[in-house]
């Protein structure tokens, strides 16, 4: 069995980086196999993006089937709703950054934020909303928003014995061009990590744990 994580958002938000750091954290913390299927090129230019992460003893297929994702990490609300068909209905969790980006099309009709959130909530076992983008923007590094999601999932994966916080933190310190960005990254990571430690209850963990057993 595998634990299936989809990472979604808008091209340019740091989706591939987020997927890669999760993969690196898993590979360097446990004996489990990991596979990350990315999308490059055309769709990356501000388009809708989904990346598939699979963690388990035997991982073969590179992509996750619709209806079979255990976790969704979303950097944007519309994209979270768009890919909600990937979630395992009522048996999955979604961790979403509270950020709505208008598609740059003329006369586009934007869905309501609360409606989007309710839509995802209806399809998941539990949903968590982060304010990563706002906090990152306040600190002058809006692209650090993905680190809050990394912190959140690291905490969950640590309690599932898949990831070591020590390893994740080392990875965080390797990202970013300037000391300033590295500092913001770390702050956002810790914010997500602490939030998950507080909010993710043991029933959520046992739901996910089932998927990692053979």
């Amino acid at each position: 069995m595998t634990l299936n994580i989809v990472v979604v958002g808008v091209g340019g938000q740091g989706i591939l980086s987020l997927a890669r750091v999760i993969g690196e954290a898993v590979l360097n913390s446990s004996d489990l196999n990991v596979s990350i299927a990315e999308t490059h090129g055309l769709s990356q230019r501000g388009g809708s993006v989904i990346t598939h992460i699979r963690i388990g003893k035997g991982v073969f297929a590179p992509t996750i089937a619709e209806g079979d994702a255990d976790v969704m990490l979303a950097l944007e609300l519309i994209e979270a709703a768009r890919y909600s068909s990937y979630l395992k209905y009522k048996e999955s969790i979604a961790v979403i950054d509270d950020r709505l980006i208008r598609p740059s099309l003329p006369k586009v009709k934007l869905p309501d934020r609360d409606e989007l959130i309710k839509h995802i909530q209806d399809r998941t076992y539990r949903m968590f909303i982060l304010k990563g983008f706002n906090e990152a923007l306040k600190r002058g590094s809006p692209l650090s928003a993905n680190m809050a999601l990394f912190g959140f999932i690291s905490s969950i994966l640590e309690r599932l014995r898949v990831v070591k916080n020590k390893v994740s933190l080392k990875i965080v310190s390797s990202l970013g061009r300037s000391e300033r960005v590295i500092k913001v990254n770390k702050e956002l990571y810790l914010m997500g990590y602490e939030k998950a430690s507080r909010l993710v209850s043991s029933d959520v963990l046992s739901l996910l744990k089932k998927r990692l057993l053979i």
Partner: protein
Amino acid sequence: MRIINLIGSIVMGKFKDLLKVSNTKVLLLGNEAIARGAIEAGVGVATAYPGTPSSEIVESLMEVKDELGIYVEWSVNEKVAFEIAYAAAISGVRSLVAMKHVGLNVAADPFMSSAYTGVEEGFVIVSADDPSMWSSQNEQDNRIYGLHGYVPVFETTIVSEVKDLTKYLFDFSSKHKHPVLLRSTTRISHTRAPIMLGEVPREFKIKGVFKKDIKYVLTPANARRDKLAMLERFSRIRQDVEKFPFNKIEGSGNKVIIAPGIAYSYVKEVIEEHNLNDVIVVKLTTIYPIPYNMIVDILRDVSAVMIIEELEPVVEYQVKDLIVNEGLKVKVYGKDITGLPYELNLNRVKKSLGKFLNVEINVGKDNLGRKQQLELPARPPTFCPGCPYRPLFYAIKMFIISKKLNAVTPGDIGCYALASNEPFKLQDVVIEMGGSLGVGNGFSKVLDDVVIAFIGDSTFFHAGIPPLINAVFNKSRLIAVILDNEVTAMTGHQPSPASKVPGKKRILIEDVAKGVGVRFVKVVDPFKIDVVKKTLEEAIEFTRKENEPAVIVVRRRCALEAFRDMRRAGVEIPIHAVDKNKCIACGICYTWFGCPAITPLTDGKASIDPGLCIGCGACVNVCPVKAIKPVKTYRPEELSKYWF
């Protein structure tokens, strides 16, 4: 990214840092694994023209070329890339050429001939195909090229095996003195998986000897002899794939599943997850030719076989052929159940296997249709904030509207193809590299409309020069707008002949245009919207009067590159904001300019998203009441050295 050493492992290692590492498992992208396999095999020359999903193969080799002392280049197109790698291989130097699937169409000519002459040393041709068309104009299955050209075809069945397969194929090609085709797909090239690193050779052979031989001269008499020699080599290859270490037969039963390439990964997962024990699975890496005797032996005593493969029934046809030849009594299933289009996925394979094996297999708990889905706006890819192409297409769109111009606008392959979307809709035909100018020639002969053809710098050098010469020679009334952002942007910023790269000679597009006899050649800055409009007007005038082509070179660097350089130099660029008291809610900026950072407020006034604005200032000239301003004063002229 910096490298970190934990006990016995490498985290977030750059490809270059991994040269010193062996016997360690690291997370590599499929393309990086192919590059690593080539290194471990001692590749001496590697070439490519970039194209998703193939680009990172040669990009990775480029990163380490100096350290290893090997020759790596971004060639002007796939045909030239192929010919350079071929020249190395017939001179006894191991070589690799990589391209996306449609690139092999461009290189098809030397590809066919290379199998006739054969090679001296390992020659691995990598074709990265794109089932489901994530980043391509079609999903052609290049395994068919192998059948067409007598070039054996191999595919990895698991991403984590692709490094070792690549390495093995160099030896295989050397042994048979014949080119080989390693076919990858998006899901192999762009999947990260743990790869066990092997040893990097101490030395690389980069100089060879060309042994002159008439077999390399494909005049008819020699080619006829070569054909026989090729068939002989190919029959030895047929023998050799019978015992290919990456093929495997698993399980037992009365039914057989043949799973070529990545299809095996899907099949394997479903078989394991659902404990489907009563079936034989053939893990097939040798796609063409298939291991004939091995398959005959398996099919002799079973009732049915199903071939699960992505895209075309390449293996299925070969298996059906074998069944007829051998008079086997076995029922064959394949594309009739799996279907032809698009890539495979777990649900599709589960459904196919369920039908074939007559078992109930749960597909993913898809919640689509369970409840009313929300109506969501589409999010097609778009020009990045700061992209010089946005003001260009804005200017041309506004010009066409204001002059009520009947214009037809063939486009091409590159970021500018995104102008096919709203609000610009200025890419009327996009079919292939260089197609804008070729199709533009044709339009100018049969239409009275103004023909404005768009092509980027890299695509112009790749396949745009012959159709421009054609326009001069055959007097085509065509306006070629050549977008020069000085780089191959879409595929990840590989250099083009228009780039300023240390140690390379930059070629100016205007010089090429003048050199081939174009008499109207102007260079414009796309941020100067009025200048673009005026130049276009002059070009229309010229082409109408003279009945010959005009060229407008639109020059400004890709914003991603310009801003990267500004950040590295520590230049602070203020973002922009809308003065709400000045804004008249006309909507031009968010409706017709279409920058992702500009959004409308409920009262129709514009607002700039501070998380998306990068401070390029292109929108300043778009606002009719000058309501858009930088949040801090700065001198844009000081930044111009980064933009040009």
